[in-house]
């Protein structure tokens, strides 16, 4: 289920798979694909499974078919390094090529992929703009109407049964930060100073779910590691004492953990 989102006077949509849609302009935005991160690790001696690009491209391909955008904007770090395009397996390169041939595919430059990706189609730009919106890899302080990636935002929410951590959109009235889309991309907590600095007055996060997004204000998310249960803060016993219990139990519970 898509979440409508009004931003800079435009009607945007946040998609639970982690992409952003701009129906009026038929634009789809995706961030941090990090294609060929697996083979980048293999180069350094860690032979992790090689299908990350395939998984990422299959997911992206599905969304392109479903929403039929005219333009796809990839917000940088689309390849894990500049040699990534050359390492793509033939089948993956072909499926990427099909995608970039079918739409106006815009590669925004990132910090991992400084050179324009070669042989994969599409057009490479430093940043992109349309109407009131600007699209770049890394957020620039104070700029409004900006969509960016780079930080791989994720958020934690304390639930009845412990914390749940998910990649998320981080938003306020001026900026939207997209979650990383790549199969092997980790994340940075939205409360980390690097992200929080761009949202000085707080904001709203949208956690990715299987069918829909879950929306919380920044203040409602938890700080990383804030607790593995509140019990961590003191002893288990002290924690138990604050749990609502049967009156019979409460009255007989010993004074422990002073």
């Amino acid at each position, binding site marked *: 289920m898509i979440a409508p989102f009004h931003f800079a006077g435009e009607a945007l949509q946040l998609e639970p798979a982690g992409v952003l849609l701009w129906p009026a302009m038929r634009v789809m935005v995706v961030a941090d694909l990090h294609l060929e991160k697996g083979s980048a690790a293999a180069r350094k001696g860690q032979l992790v499974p090689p299908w990350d690009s395939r998984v990422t491209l299959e997911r992206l391909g599905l969304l392109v078919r479903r929403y039929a955008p005219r333009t796809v904007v990839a917000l940088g770090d689309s390849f894990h390094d500049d040699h990534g395009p050359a390492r793509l397996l033939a089948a993956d390169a072909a499926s990427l090529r099909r995608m970039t041939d079918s739409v106006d595919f815009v590669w925004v430059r990132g910090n991992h992929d400084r050179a324009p990706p070669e042989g994969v189609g599409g057009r490479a730009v430093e940043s992109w703009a349309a109407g009131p919106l600007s699209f770049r890899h890394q957020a620039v302080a104070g700029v409004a109407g900006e969509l960016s990636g780079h930080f791989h935002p994720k958020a934690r929410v304390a639930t*009845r*049964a412990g914390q749940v951590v998910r990649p998320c959109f981080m938003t306020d009235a001026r900026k939207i930060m997209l979650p990383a889309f790549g199969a092997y991309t980790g994340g940075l907590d939205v409360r980390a100073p690097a992200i929080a600095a761009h949202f000085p007055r707080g904001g709203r996060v949208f956690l990715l779910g299987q069918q829909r997004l879950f929306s919380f204000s920044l203040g409602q998310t938890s700080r990383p590691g804030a607790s593995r249960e509140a019990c961590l803060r003191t002893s288990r016993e002290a924690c138990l004492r604050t749990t609502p219990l049967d009156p019979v139990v409460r009255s007989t519970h*010993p004074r422990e953990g002073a």
Partner: protein
Amino acid sequence: MLAAARAGEHVLLIAPTGGGKTLAGFLPSLVDLAGGPRTTAGLHTLYVSPLKALATDIARNLTAPVAEMGLNIRIETRTGDTSSDARKKQRETPPDLLLTTPESFALLLSQPEAPSMFGGLHAVIVDEVHALAGTKRGDQLALCLARAAKWAPRARRVGLSATVAHRAALRAFIGCGDAARLIEVDEGAAPQITMMLPEERIAWAGRMGLASASAVMKRIRGAGMTIVFVNTRAQAELLFQELWRLNEDTLPIALHHGSLDLAQRKRVEAAMAAGALRAVVATSSLDLGIDWGGVDQVIQVGAPKGTARLLQRVGRANHRMDEPSVAVLVPANRFEVLECEAAISGVAAHELDGDAPGAGGLDVLAQHVLLMAASAAFLPDEMFAEVRRAAPYAGLARQDFDDVLRFVEDGGYALSQYERWRKLFRDAEGRVHVANARVARQARMNLGTIVEQPLLKVRLAGRGGAALGEVEEYFANGLRAGDTFMFAGRLLKFLRIHETTLECADGGTGTPAVPAYGGTRMSLTTNLAARVRAILHDPGRWGQLPDQVREWLQMQQERSELPGPDGLLVEIFPREGRWYLVAYGFEGRNAHQTLGMPLTRRMERFRYAPLGFVATEYVLGVWSAEEPQDIAGLFHHDLLGEDLDVWMADTSMLRRTFRNVAVISGLVDRHYPGAEKNRRQVTVNTDLIYNVLKKHQPDHVLLRATWRDARGGLTDLGRLGALLDRARGRVTVRRLDRVSPLAVPVLLDIGRESVRTEADEDSLLEETELLVREATGGPGGQGGTPHPPRLSAPRRAIAR
């Protein structure tokens, strides 16, 4: 021992602690070395101990008498602490006796000099075999023993062990493909074990036992030297603080656990050896090791978990064969009172428990294969034969071996694209070589089978601030500047995290946080659980229980009934608008946790709308919106079918297990030259790898290894099967109008971490989102989102 040595036999020596078995192990080697100049150069005897401290201590204990006797025997240690100069020298001219750990042993064998270094070996002594066999460290050691036997086929192997249940498995471990003679020394005087209760009420739940601190303090005052054993590091910190709060005479009481800085631990051990301490609060870090001699009593605070483990701990007191060890058990709650009582009767009956060592891990094998290739090229057929000598791998299938070898070679992926980055290559004769020096170096850097969460060093701020130990990064991330936390027996103020160090200062104020550590928790053993059930079912034995516990059981008898030795008791009662189902399984927390998921799935199918569950060592508690009706149907033994596999593959348990497998097998590296500062950049998150691998190659050897580990470890499927078998046709259902006395403890445990899948998490998020919205009266927020996502109809909460 000498006769066996003369005959060149391998020996497993089983003796209680304090029997002087370590010296017995060395005796033949000392006699041999004293007999005159040696015909062969190089290492004569290798001693392997699970603890660095033990190796160091024994080296010291041997060096003095050898020097006094004027013997010209070079005795040295080789551990992670050995300087690189000393290591180099040891490689060039090995000492006569080398004392080391399994990891350092493996490291030596991975060197190109290994054949010459071990060629003249006469004996390998493995201390505390019982603590190693059945663990991944033990798997690695068994493989190393097989490797050493290749370079020195005539070397004798000697295993030293405490009394254990599974002698045959340990003999096979030491035999390593050959026969091993068993020499068993009589146990000394039976230990005197008593139970001590808190002065006030006995708690319903909780595991720290802090209510007994003053009673423990009294026992410490009344004895010369006490070891206070606890079950977790957090419990150690808390109890230590509480004891010091009560320590009016400022008796020297110390703290010892595995996360404290090595230097700190050494200081504590030295003070113990010198008799300068009155008590030390310790975790399993003091289970094994050096005889301190002067320990007058052992106090176990919290559940004993198993009789063999309890005996091991009790054996730390009074290491003299002719006098009984004195031990006191301090239960932290009512169920633990029963468990302590059961453990005391188990010890009296000389019953030993614990699981038999299982098959060796394929992840350990992968690490070993690469390390051995780093030492010398091998033919796969020969390596397979060598590996099968190691007891944990005696039943290894050739297919598994080949898959492991291929994994090490190029990842072993169906879609092979890593030819350029292979770690091994084969020459024209089919011999397997390591690809290059960098691969060999990286393999050595990442050697070892103990996987920890990312850790941060804890250090007092300022130039030359003392290192205190390590905490999990997860814990550190939750602290804000100025927060107080309890560590290394101090109240500390958190200042900042700098690279991989947590900087702090003395003198924190306010309620402290206590670091918790991951890692596997030991489960209540099957034998001990059976004993607890037997006590529950036999009111004739309640006379020995404290009044409060007896009354508790009597009340249970009146309001419901007591779980029997067979069958399965299930209670159902309403409470605050929910229905609770409590199943008295007694198969340990892991098995109960594993049962929770398929059971709640089935409850959902039966339309009882399950909401969540919680597992303890003794019971499983489930709560639901509707009253569960068909209980026999719920616990039908087909519960362990395909459904369970599908669910398990998606749980956090499997991911956690996979992480360990990925690290040990070398799929991801823990250490990378110069990468400590930004390790996240280097390592791909293993959860993400798991997802991709599961999707594209579900039969990959690492996923197979993960499943094998999971079935034994975190999920305890064997015990779950036993539970369902026992329940077959014998489920007793009690429908009550309110919570039963026996069920109170599990209700108190609700709210702790439970195992779940992504879909469960979605439900939790949805519930939380709704709650927040209700509480705040709409979406609000400063984020400028006038149009929140439309809500789907509220789905069920936690369980799918």
